[in-house]
């Protein structure tokens, strides 16, 4: 009997998977869009064009671009160091990289309040950090940091460092090796890490909520704005703003698929 030709297994598995997708993914997405357009196109676009919304988009995009950019550099450095070098404390570093994923985002926010807040260690700083964009940027970088490194480390370790060593023997220097040998090879996991980091940065709620102070037109990111609108019983507006987040996510995933096609090799 061939296990993989048995329809009695194949169809039930497919039905389970699709049911799951339908109930938990497709239905909510459809609902978001129907609610968003419940008061008509005009209302939808007036919500999107609202100054508060535009400001939230601006802040969310800034936090995302900044954290993903820093993530790219830090993640790549950490992955390269851990995968290619031996040094004392390597295991510890490897474990610490996972920490932001396992700590509750609310705790992350509180930690930074304790550091930068009025009674914190660094309260004497000249510029406002807490309840201002800098704190939002810091917590977003913190919670997204593991994504790129986590994707890259196992990939680089499994791949080995012999291509890099060979390139070095052939006279290539660090930047040539990175650009010509390593980056083309790690495109796929790097892309996945960046997509995950972007999605998390855009959608981060808990940590940002704690440090933002919830000041409209100043420290509201998109998820916080959705929450505020919802709390004010402006359901249609809340869903309209939510569609921005949804569409951005679709866009990023599509972009990744187009830019990073699985290569031969």
């Amino acid at each position, binding site marked *: 009997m061939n296990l993989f030709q048995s329809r009695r297994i194949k169809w039930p598995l497919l039905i389970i998977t699709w049911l799951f997708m339908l109930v938990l993914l497709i239905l909510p997405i459809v609902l978001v869009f129907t609610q968003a357009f419940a008061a008509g196109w005009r209302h939808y676009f007036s919500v999107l064009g609202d100054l508060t919304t535009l400001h939230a988009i601006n802040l969310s995009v800034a936090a995302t671009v900044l954290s993903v950019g820093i993530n790219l550099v830090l993640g790549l450095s950490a992955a390269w160091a851990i995968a290619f070098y031996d040094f004392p404390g390597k295991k510890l570093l490897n474990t610490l990289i996972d920490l932001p994923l396992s700590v509750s985002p609310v705790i992350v926010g509180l930690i930074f309040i304790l550091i930068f807040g009025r009674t914190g260690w660094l309260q004497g700083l000249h510029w406002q950090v807490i309840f201002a964009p800098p704190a939002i940027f810091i917590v977003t970088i913190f919670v997204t940091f593991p994504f790129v490194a986590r994707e890259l480390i196992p990939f680089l370790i499994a791949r*080995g460092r*012999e*291509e890099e*060593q*060979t*390139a*070095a*023997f*052939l*006279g*290539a*220097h660090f930047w*040539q090796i990175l650009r*010509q*040998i390593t980056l*083309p*090879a790690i495109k796929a996991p790097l892309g996945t890490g960046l997509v995950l980091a972007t999605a998390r940065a855009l959608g981060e709620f808990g940590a940002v909520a704690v440090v933002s102070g919830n000041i409209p037109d100043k420290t509201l990111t998109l998820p916080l704005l959705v929450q505020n609108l919802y709390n004010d019983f402006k359901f249609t507006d809340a869903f309209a703003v939510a569609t921005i987040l949804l569409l951005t996510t679709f866009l990023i995933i599509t972009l990744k698929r187009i830019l990073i096609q699985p*290569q*031969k*090799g």
Partner: protein
Amino acid sequence: MYLEINQIAKNFKQQTVLKEISFGVKAGSLTALLGPSGSGKTTLLRILAGLETPTTGDVAIDGQVINRVKPQDRGIGFVFQNYALFRYLTVYDNIAFGLRTQHWSEDKIKARVDQLLAVTGLTALAQRYPNQLSGGQKQRVAFVRAIAPNPKVLFLDEPFAALDTQIRQELRGWLKQVIHQMGITSIFVTHDHTEAIEIADEIVVMNDGRVEQIGTPADVYNQPASQFVAEFIGHSSLLESPQLAGYQLPTAPYQVQIRPEQVAIFKKNEPTALPTQTATVKHVTFCGALINVELDLNGQRLFATRQAQQAPLLIGETVQLTINRLVLFKDNVGHAQHLQPLQPVRRSYAL
């Protein structure tokens, strides 16, 4: 010597991997580092290439000590066991890589790569990617890529280990020929003594972090310097203090190594003029051209070979045998001895 290895030692934490190794390699020669796994041969190769730092000692190429020189600037080629081809570059670009880093003009690069591709029979594969090549082709590309920038020394780590038997056989001859044709000083690591004997000009036999013997394949095969070399290289029998007619043997204890091809078996009716021993046939194995025979010589196991067309041997049969040549070990120092009446003495055995 072109490549000088001077008192190289390596410790990993508490463990001593290499114990003050010194030897030299002649320009243009092909040297094998041969030893069982754990003998330190790969560590030595990696130290020579600059992938590891020796605890003490130094390495010199052409009179220049290269310990502190980065791998990039040593001017060496290295072929990894799994080839490490750049998988996002074509065969052509793989080979051109080391020329581009040296800022050769594209015209010169094309001329050099095309010439190498032609010499090695890879021209048709120039635009392929590594995953479109067979194991043997990958091996050739890795080798050509390493020699393209004219390295001073070429290192190969177990170059044939990942190939199947037939291609391995074919590539051995090919590699030896190309290396000699181009005159590249090369060192390769292997655990396979037939491979070392077949292609190397010189073999460095390593065991437990030490060099056991350095010599030509014929030397190492025929004149093993220690019991380890005798046992590790080629098939042979080791006997403990045997009494053998026709040899001047010291007082016990001593050991004697005998190659199967040095034992001639005579059935009762087959005449021999030489001093003989009496032994019993224990096993007979048919192996095509030759028959492998296991004999019982006064309670010790002795292996011999016999031509397939000679009269068949029966298990349990009593036979006479002459041993043409043996290596005697006294206090682990080896001396080759020949059967006394044999003349003239053959200096070396044709491989």
